[in-house]
């Protein structure tokens, strides 16, 4: 069976790496990895029999023996094309899951801010790391277990109370090596104090045209009245496999805003979750996916309202071409204590061909009685009345359709605060939908 064979491959890879660790293999931090690999042994990779993976068959990725690759040389010039033109950023570059300090740069930050490699933290400040690591993203499937077992590198960001990080932090991930099927498993941790503010761009790109697997876990702690925005941009090659778990934890009065934009990848699975665990929090989850060929993009979200007087907004949109497939599963939990919750969810998709397909499942579980929750889903084709309206003004049919599709997609970026980022994303959408 592929599943067992593939599992054995990763377990033996783990053992090999472990042998090379020397002293580190005796540390308390490594115990956490060992614990994760034994959980990984217990789990199989999810199959479509698992309710959470019903519409996403990951069997194609089990055919490859993806492996950790180090020492790929990459220059500043190589990554230039992945930067957002004109946007001033603090840059953390991750190549095949490993933090590359020579390519990274940071402007002067308020005192107490830490932006460093996960590797550095493991070696130099494991006590700090262990206060947060693995406390939020629970190991509930094979992918999270695998990432946790292979938690060697990534980016750690600590923003103390009251600190405001002016410029974006761009965590730029590049994967690939000639002739290799690369396994990248960055592990990121974002810890923000009260009244702090930070905006993060998390982008994924490919170097070679091979099948690679990127399996990411992000844990994000949003402090009291803190404002954290994350822009996740998936732009890997069309053969890539990409699995991403982002778990946010929100303290009182905090705002967490997450954008998930998917353009590339063969099979992409995002799990974007936030737990609103104190009063007066706001959680915003937005997403856009544009798919073509035989791409498969699965967005799972969970907005967990645990406390009263919080609000959440969710909007995911997709444009599916050719025989591509989309999945949207949006869970909103309103727990029994979470009175006065205000939750809004919307999910829209346009299918450009009769072969494109989407499975959509809004899932609202409400246990409190004094709440306002709504959701809407609209799947379909373009509004023909609108197409005629544009044509009646002299705009050709093809251009009319393109204009309307672009408008449908770009609508998701309307709330972006950065004009440069807004224009950059619009530009990609523009080029993709021509």
């Amino acid at each position: 069976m592929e599943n067992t064979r593939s599992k054995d491959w990763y377990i033996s890879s783990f053992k090999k790496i472990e042998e090379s660790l020397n002293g580190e293999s005796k540390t308390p931090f490594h115990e956490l990895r060992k614990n994760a690999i034994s959980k990984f042994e217990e789990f199989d990779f999810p199959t479509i029999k698992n309710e959470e993976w019903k519409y996403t068959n990951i069997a194609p990725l089990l055919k490859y023996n993806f492996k950790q690759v180090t020492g790929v040389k990459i220059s500043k010039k190589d990554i230039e094309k992945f930067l957002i033109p004109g946007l001033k950023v603090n840059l953390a570059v991750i190549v095949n899951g490993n933090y590359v300090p020579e390519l990274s740069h940071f402007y002067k930050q308020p005192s107490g801010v830490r932006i460093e490699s996960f590797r550095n933290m493991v070696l130099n400040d494991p006590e700090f790391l262990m206060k947060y690591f693995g406390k939020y993203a629970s190991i509930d499937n094979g992918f999270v277990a695998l990432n946790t077992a292979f938690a060697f590198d990534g980016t750690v960001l600590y923003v103390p109370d009251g600190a405001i990080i002016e410029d974006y932090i761009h965590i730029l991930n590049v994967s690939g090596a000639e002739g290799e099927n690369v396994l990248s498993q960055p592990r990121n941790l974002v810890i923000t104090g009260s009244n702090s503010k930070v905006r993060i761009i998390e982008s994924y790109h490919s170097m070679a045209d091979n099948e690679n697997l990127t399996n990411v876990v992000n844990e994000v702690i949003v402090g009291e009245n803190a404002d954290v925005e994350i822009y996740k941009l998936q732009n890997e090659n069309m053969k890539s496999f990409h699995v991403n778990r982002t778990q946010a934890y929100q303290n009182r009065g905090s705002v967490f805003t997450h954008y998930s934009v998917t353009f590339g990848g063969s099979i992409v699975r995002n799990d974007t979750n936030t737990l609103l665990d104190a009063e007066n929090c706001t959680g915003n989850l937005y997403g856009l996916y544009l798919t073509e060929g035989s791409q498969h993009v699965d967005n799972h979200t969970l907005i967990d309202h645990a406390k009263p007087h919080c609000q959440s907004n969710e909007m995911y949109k997709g444009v599916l071409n050719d025989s591509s497939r989309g999945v949207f599963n949006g869970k909103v939990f309103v727990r029994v204590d979470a009175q006065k919750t205000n939750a809004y969810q919307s999910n829209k998709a346009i299918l450009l061909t009769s072969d494109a397909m989407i499975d959509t499942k809004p899932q609202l579980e409400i246990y409190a009685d004094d709440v306002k929750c709504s959701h809407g889903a609209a799947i379909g084709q373009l509004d023909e009345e609108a197409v005629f309206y544009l044509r009646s003004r002299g705009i050709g049919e093809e251009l009319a359709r393109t204009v309307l599709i672009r408008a449908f997609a770009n609508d998701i970026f309307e709330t972006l605060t950065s004009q440069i980022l807004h224009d950059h994303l619009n530009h990609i959408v523009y080029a993709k939908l021509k």
Partner: protein
Amino acid sequence: MLTVKDLYVRVEDKEILKGINLQVNRGEVHAIMGPNGSGKSTLANVIAGKEGYEITGGEVTLDGKDLLDMLPEERAREGVFLAFQYPVEIPGVSNASFLKTALNEIRKHKGLEELDAMHFLKFMKEKMKMVGIDDNLINRPVNQGFSGGEKKRNEIFQLQMLQPTLAVLDETDSGLDIDALKVVSHGVNLFRNKDNAVVVVTHYQRLLNYIVPDFVHVLVSGRIVKSGGKELALELEDKGYDWVTNTVPAAETV
């Protein structure tokens, strides 16, 4: 300029237009009046090229060119403009960029140079002033969240921007209060000249106080049953549609 000859149109199994004849010349304003369901909007939509209508007979030409053989966008580029009864909301597309695209498509067709952003803006500002439309409506997505009056005003603004040769106004007065009606009519009157023509489709005479027609045609059950000058509209207002419907032979109204 516009010639409609013996036009028969069906929607599914129902015959809506039963032999329409109409000749509109440059410099003229024609009003098509009629009760609900008489086929007024069908005539407007067929001229503009909306799908869903089956032409079973007759012809429609613009300066001798067969309109029925053209796509909606080709008709627009040839100079046909339909002011919609229910203008469509288009989220995510700003009014200004929509009009720039439309205007340049039409200019390309006419062999004119496309307007660059600066010249377009200058041209647009002139027209905005003329129609009395403000920046706010221009930068918003097309018709999104507009009031009924704003939508109609936006149609007339588009009319001014695109400068067609034939403007067909489909129930432009519906849903307008008297002030909005005056503004919209003023826009249409500014548009009128000896080289273009206007067809006003309306249920009520009210609009024709402001856009004074040269000819009035009364459409009943898919046929033009009476034509005359502007006084015909007043007579209709006075006597009601029963006056003309009663003149249709009984056997044909079944």
